[in-house]
């Protein structure tokens, strides 16, 4: 910066520059000091802004998030969440109308421990910072207007959700229910559950509640419906049957198959054993094998279908998908892609490394119900502004076309026969057509653990030819019951959930 025009030469002694010159130089130096400040300020306020704003020790983002009532999560038009003034630095904290009932759906929003699941995925909308909520983005930026939090409308059916939670009761387990035609998730339950409102604030009581939940050996904060995988056992035979039918290994479900008995797994001397002696004969049909849940026949058919077609069919239902977002991300369900034939035989009956989330097993039932069209599961119907006006509508989308309508029809017949004549009789609903499959999966070292009791099913009013309105997967883990079977423990829960949907 030029300070002034020169006032004559005004040289100093001995030809040295005078004060006019040195003063100007010193002035330039002082200006450079201030320029250095401006540059550093630009660095901090522009280039390092993002990093500093999101530093873990910076409370501002949390203060802003809780500076106004948070938007709500809605179930059937009613908020299941709320906000309460705290009088502290974080002005509002999250409340939950029926916390344990919907914990697997909502996740939590805690001033101390952050946001998870729907609370986390849609945090921007709920806290009002999502640009989609702004009416006039530029004007709002100028006036520093903060948008009121938007709402997230879920697809949950409160009756089905309540039936799922009540059905699980004090047992450890999970339920996922889907509307097959759309992929809308009707119920998502995990027990034992927890109250996400118990640690929403910052007090010592909140911290103690959090610590108790974290230390609980029953892991109440684990979302078993989405985030836990279990060996699916015999419920996986629906996938094997679908693959066998779709690939033409079996064309007539009532015709005798060439499955031998005993079936010694290829490359081994070990026969694949059955749980019931009725299975111990050669030449059973696919329908008989499914109804009786015969390991030997289904293991054999899985090997006949082949690894490639088995993995392809499993993938259609969400197996091996590490990014299955509903939009909360589900854990990756596994079906090995590299196996020898004996491993494939075991995997085809839901053992070996095969493991699935209840969500994925519900997708299996839903695929059969919806003529092979597996829809992407979705937990959110739409996002709205605080005044209820729509911001974003979630359209149903096809996840995979697993097989054609013909195979679907055969598969449904197999599942109906399981409920009518086989292991799934506990799921029968008067006045409704129900198709299902039981599963009782061994686990633990040498199968020492209590087996996992599974049941997957769909249901529609009797005589209806429309797509069944509900498909469900139930898993009961570590039950205290003496006789643990899918048909005994899980099928009644599935029935009450399906009944709740059918009674709408």
């Amino acid at each position, binding site marked *: *910066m030029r*300070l*002034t025009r020169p*006032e004559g030469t005004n040289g*100093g*002694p*001995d030809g*040295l*520059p*005078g*004060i*006019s*010159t*040195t*003063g*100007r*130089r*010193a*002035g330039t*130096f*002082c*200006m450079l*000091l*201030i320029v*250095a*400040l*401006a540059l*550093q*300020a*630009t660095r*901090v*306020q*522009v280039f*390092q*802004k993002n*990093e*500093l*704003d999101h*530093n*873990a*020790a*910076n*409370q*501002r983002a949390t*203060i802003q998030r809780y500076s106004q009532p948070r938007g709500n999560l809605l179930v059937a038009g009613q908020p299941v969440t709320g906000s309460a003034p705290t009088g502290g630095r974080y002005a509002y904290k999250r409340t939950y109308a029926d916390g344990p009932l919907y914990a697997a759906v909502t996740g939590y929003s805690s001033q101390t421990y952050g946001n998870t699941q729907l609370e986390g995925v849609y945090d921007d909308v709920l806290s009002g910072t999502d640009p989609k909520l702004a009416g006039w983005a530029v004007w709002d*930026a*100028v006036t*520093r207007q903060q948008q009121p939090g938007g709402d997230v409308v879920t697809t949950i059916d409160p009756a089905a959700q309540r039936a799922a939670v009540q059905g699980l009761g004090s047992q450890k387990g999970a339920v996922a229910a889907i509307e097959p035609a759309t992929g809308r998730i009707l119920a998502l339950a995990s027990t034992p559950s927890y109250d996400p409102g118990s640690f929403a604030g910052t007090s010592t009581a909140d911290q103690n509640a959090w610590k108790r939940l974290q230390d609980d050996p029953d892991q109440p904060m684990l979302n078993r419906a989405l985030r836990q995988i279990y060996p699916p056992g015999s419920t996986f035979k629906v996938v094997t049957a679908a693959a066998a039918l779709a690939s033409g290994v079996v064309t007539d479900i009532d015709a005798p198959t060439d499955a031998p008995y005993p079936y010694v797994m290829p490359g081994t001397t070990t026969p694949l054993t059955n749980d019931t002696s009725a299975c111990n004969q050669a030449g059973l049909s696919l329908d008989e094998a499914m109804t009786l849940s015969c390991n030997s026949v289904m293991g054999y058919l899985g090997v006949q279908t082949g690894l490639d077609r088995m993995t392809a069919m499993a993938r259609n239902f969400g197996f091996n998908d590490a990014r299955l977002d509903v939009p909360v991300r589900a854990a990756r369900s596994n079906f090995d892609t590299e196996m020898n034939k004996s491993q494939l035989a075991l995997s085809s009956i839901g053992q070996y490394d095969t493991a699935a989330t209840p969500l994925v097993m519900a997708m299996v039932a839903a695929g059969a119900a919806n003529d092979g069209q597996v829809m992407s599961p979705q937990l959110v119907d739409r996002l709205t502004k605080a005044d209820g006006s729509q911001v974003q509508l979630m359209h149903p989308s096809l996840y995979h076309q697993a097989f054609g309508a013909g195979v679907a029809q055969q598969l449904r017949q197999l599942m109906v026969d399981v409920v009518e004549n086989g292991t799934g009789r506990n799921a029968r609903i008067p006045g409704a057509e129900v198709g299902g499959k039981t599963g009782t999966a061994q686990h633990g070292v040498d199968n020492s653990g209590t087996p996992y009791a599974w049941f997957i099913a769909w249901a529609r009013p009797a005589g209806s030819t429309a797509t069944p309105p509900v498909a469900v997967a139930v898993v009961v883990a570590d039950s205290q019951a003496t006789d643990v079977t899918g048909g005994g423990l899980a099928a009644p829960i599935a029935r009450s959930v399906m009944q709740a949907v059918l009674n709408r």
Partner: protein
Amino acid sequence: MVATDSATRAARAPRARRARTGRWTELVLVLAAVGIAVFGYVEVGVNIDGQAPPDAAQYGAALGVLALLAHAAVRWRATWADPLLLPIAVLLNGIGLVVIYRLDRNPGSAAAPTQLLWSTLGVGLFIAVLLLLRDHRRLQRYAYVGAFVALVLLVLPVFFPPVYGSRIWITLGPLSFQPGEFAKVLLAIFFAAYLAAHRDALALTGRRVLWFQLPLGRVLGPVLLIWAAFVGVLVLETDLGTSLLFFGLFVVMLYVATARTGWIVIGLLLSALAAVGVGWLSPHVHSRVTEWLHPLASIEAGQGANQIAQSLFAFAWGGQLGTGLGLGHSALIGFATKSDFILATVGEELGLTGLFAVLLLYALLVARGFRTGIALRDPFGRLLAIGLAALVAIQVFVVAGGVLDLIPLTGMTLPFIAQGGSSVVTNWIIVALLVRMSDLARRPAPEEDA
């Protein structure tokens, strides 16, 4: 200065055919400065309470009356003074009052009324200087007395309890002030007087070492001794900011007086030595240096954010436009938000834009000081104006650089803006001296004036 010229033209009295005094420009700018401050008060109230604060009118009126009194004094006793100096001081003081008023809304004691009282005293002294000191050259006579008084002022706080690790405060009942603030003006006067008298000897005598001309010991001796006494006292009081300020002032004035670049090299060497030595000996200073180099280290260590980190968070949160007055969270910085860290609130709530505006005001004030110094004819006045301007520049750099993590943090007040009576009063005196000298510098030759 396009804006100034057009403003002058707009406000020019019709009879003025002769050289312009700039007084009407000054009046318009002073009123604009008061207007900006009043707008700030109202914004604080609207943003926090949703309505204009009831006491905004009183604050605005008080600031307006003070500004107009100061303007009247300039008009009466310093007709030809630089028309930018007073408006800049009023605006900076006004911004400071608004930001302190806003920070009073955080839990804690109210500081704005006291600050307004000190500002009143500052303006009173500004007027007193203009009325009593008709020619700055008279100050030359009291240079040594002033230096002695300054030294006494600096030694006094040693007998008072330390505040935040520094013995720089004198506390008498409810009143407390930092004598170092007053001492810096006296020291600038002493340096200017001494160097004006001895600059030829300093520049020409002495021996050559390598390619530097070193002055004789007997010429340099007294000034070095006094400077060492000052810095020594300050190091004892662990007031690193003020020692850095005095050191910078000393080097700048020596260079301006003698044009010997050797001084800069010696100055840098000495300051590097002092910095390393003090950093090594004093744990207080050592931790400041560590925090400067690694401001976020305490977070990674799980001990939470220190003040520097909190200050950086505040600046970053403001971004380019700021949150708006009253809508930031600089209270998270903890203590000294109204004094040492007040710039963080400016950065957070007024954004980079507001911060640039404040820095520009300081740059203008400093530039006008240097311009006055260069335009004056007497060596004492030239050195004094340059010295005072350099004081402001270095102090701004030391404070702002500290809170922006450009240099290690040293406790000091931001001129005019930060809370602190001694600081505000001293800065009004500095501006009064610059106004007095600029009056002489801009006065037309007598035949035009007749």
